[in-house]
């Protein structure tokens, strides 16, 4: 049925208002990052000002921003890959056998406060000699990414008709081969979404890196706090850093938004 024009207009107007509410703080952040230290604390706040790249120049020039970004990328990609490698087969097994405790077990870490892990993990990784290596961060971040992969993929695997997997069995696939040749290609949209979410949540997580990283492996998000320091609180610089840190997740979201909506919703509804 065709919706009346005024109703459609009403929807657009409401979306517009919500859009402004959602985007205004983001816009303000980006705007502030182009303000000089004087403009950024000016009151009343100004929309019209002489934009400057100083904050970015300063940020990239005087802090190891690029190094931190590289660390973040290594840790994030590493933990996302590890999360997928561990999570995909596990989700497949849970979907096949309907035995759900392994999936629940991987969620246990999400029920505890993150600070609970800091002291014991430090002790543990020190014993393993992994403190200050990327592995400590990749492994701990995989604790975050793996459940995401499992829970996003579970409904996708569940949605594959059992008969297709049985046909593969009759055709001569073992379980491992049926995952690789049949199931995985069929959940590729879910896999994209799972990877994106795993990437984003790993990129955004700061608590573990605070303790398990050192000056050479520190991630961007853990370093972000350093932009608020005594004697030098630099709101413009802070906003420039915030903007740059937020950029990768936002770009990813934009790039895959169509998949994200279909894939995530499917996952979330059934998970």
């Amino acid at each position, binding site marked *: 049925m065709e919706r009346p024009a005024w109703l459609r207009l009403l929807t657009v107007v409401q979306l517009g208002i919500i859009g402004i509410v959602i985007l205004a703080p983001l816009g303000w952040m980006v705007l502030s990052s182009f303000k000089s230290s004087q403009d950024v604390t000016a009151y009343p706040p100004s929309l019209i000002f002489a934009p400057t790249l100083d904050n970015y120049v300063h940020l990239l020039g005087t802090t190891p921003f690029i190094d931190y970004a590289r660390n973040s990328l290594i840790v994030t990609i590493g933990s996302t890959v590890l999360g997928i490698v561990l999570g995909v087969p596990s989700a497949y097994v849970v979907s096949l056998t309907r035995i759900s405790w392994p999936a629940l077990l991987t969620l246990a870490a999400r029920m505890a406060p993150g600070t609970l892990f*800091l*002291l014991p993990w*430090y002790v543990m990784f*020190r014993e393993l000699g992994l*403190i200050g290596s990327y592995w400590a961060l990749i492994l701990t971040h995989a604790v975050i990414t793996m459940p995401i992969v499992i829970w996003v993929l579970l409904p996708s695997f569940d949605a594959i008709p059992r008969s297709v997997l049985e046909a593969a069995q009759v055709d001569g696939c073992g379980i491992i081969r049926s995952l690789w040749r049949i199931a995985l290609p069929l959940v590729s949209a879910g896999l994209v979404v799972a990877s994106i979410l795993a990437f984003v949540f790993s990129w955004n997580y700061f608590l573990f890196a605070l303790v398990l990283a050192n000056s050479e492996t520190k991630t961007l998000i*853990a370093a972000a706090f*350093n932009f608020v320091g*005594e004697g*030098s*609180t630099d709101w413009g610089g802070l906003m420039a850093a915030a903007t740059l840190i937020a950029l990768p997740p936002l770009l990813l979201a934009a790039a895959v938004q169509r998949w994200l909506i279909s894939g995530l919703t499917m996952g979330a509804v059934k998970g």
Partner: protein
Amino acid sequence: MPASTAVRALTLAALVAARVPQAQAADFDWTKYKGTTITFLANNNAVGNAVAKHKAEFEKLTGMTVKVDTYQEQQMRQRLVTVLNARSNEVDVFMTLVSREGAQFAGAGWYTDLGAFKADASPDYDFAGLSPVLVQAATIDGKLTSIPTNVEGPVIYYRKDVFAKCGVAFPTALDAFPDAAKAIKACNPGMTPFVSRGLRDALAYTYSNFVHNMGGRYMRDGKSDLCSAPNKAALGLYAGLLKEYGPPGVVNYTFNQISSLYRTGRAAIAFESTNEFPAMMEGGAREADTAIAVLPPGPGGSVPTGLGWGLSISPFSTKRAPAWYLVQWATSPAMQAELARDGIAAPRAKIAEDPDYKAFIAAKPIRQEWQNAVDAIARTGSSEIGFPIVANPASRGPIGQSVDEVLLAAKTVDQACADADRSLDALIAGQ
């Protein structure tokens, strides 16, 4: 420190002779640990950043490599505690606030006694030149926990132009403060008359000066003493000033909001750390119209709050001797003169005599005022911020809470101090 007397005499003599920065005594081998890498866990404040900024000079001098791992204070502490708790050798040198965590860390054995290393100092390392007050504060159970790196304390930054315009004289007594603030509010309604820390866990730093100047102290005979007359007066005065004359939302204010507010010309008086001097002056707008003073005296006299960050060596470090080289270099007279020019008040009175530094101070009158305030702090300061107990960090909470309760008009002064006494007595008893 009887053992160090001789060293002190020696180095004193040496210092007089050699005041040129980076001058090295020929008989001290800075390159002894060439090739060693040491890790320095630094707080992201002026002190930590300044050391980090000059680290290349140290590396050139010694042939050692320094890895500086910088965090904002809270995160640094989080990491430090984790590292030390695991007895890890990951960190060699770290920054510490003895006035805060000193007793706890010393009790845990988390400090290397630096007294033993003093002998291995460069001849121009004037140990005796370090502020005796701060060295005393850094000595716990006869062990030197850390070398003072800076001296700092809250001071009054105020707008002399506004005072002049409103015909108000800078108050000479602490209890005259509200009147001055009131007069400024009346003649300049758009401006915040007074701002200082309102954030619960941060305000003990500024509030303690009020307590001491009013003649109060935190503890008496092993009991919390917050309901004594001077303490109640301090509580009423500090909370009242912020409540009546502070900015909206002052209850969340700490150094960064305060310096932003003052720098942009929206506060007439700011009571904040000497370390914030560069931040307050940034952009140059405040250099001409600002004056700096210590908090006016009260019934208890003038007892500015003074403390300093210190450099410590981890007892779990496997490179304690090389680590000492970084500590002594960073706290050497030459380096401290450099740091002073970055706005870090040195815990060495003699720095003031350094000609370069003198020229630097003389370049702007405001710098001299700042230096005077720092001197006063170093001379007469008290580092009692919060309770002189091992659980000092935890004791700051109830103090801040009592101020905020009065500030937010949630409780009267009597109720607030009584409640705080109860929590603190429990804390003292629980040790």
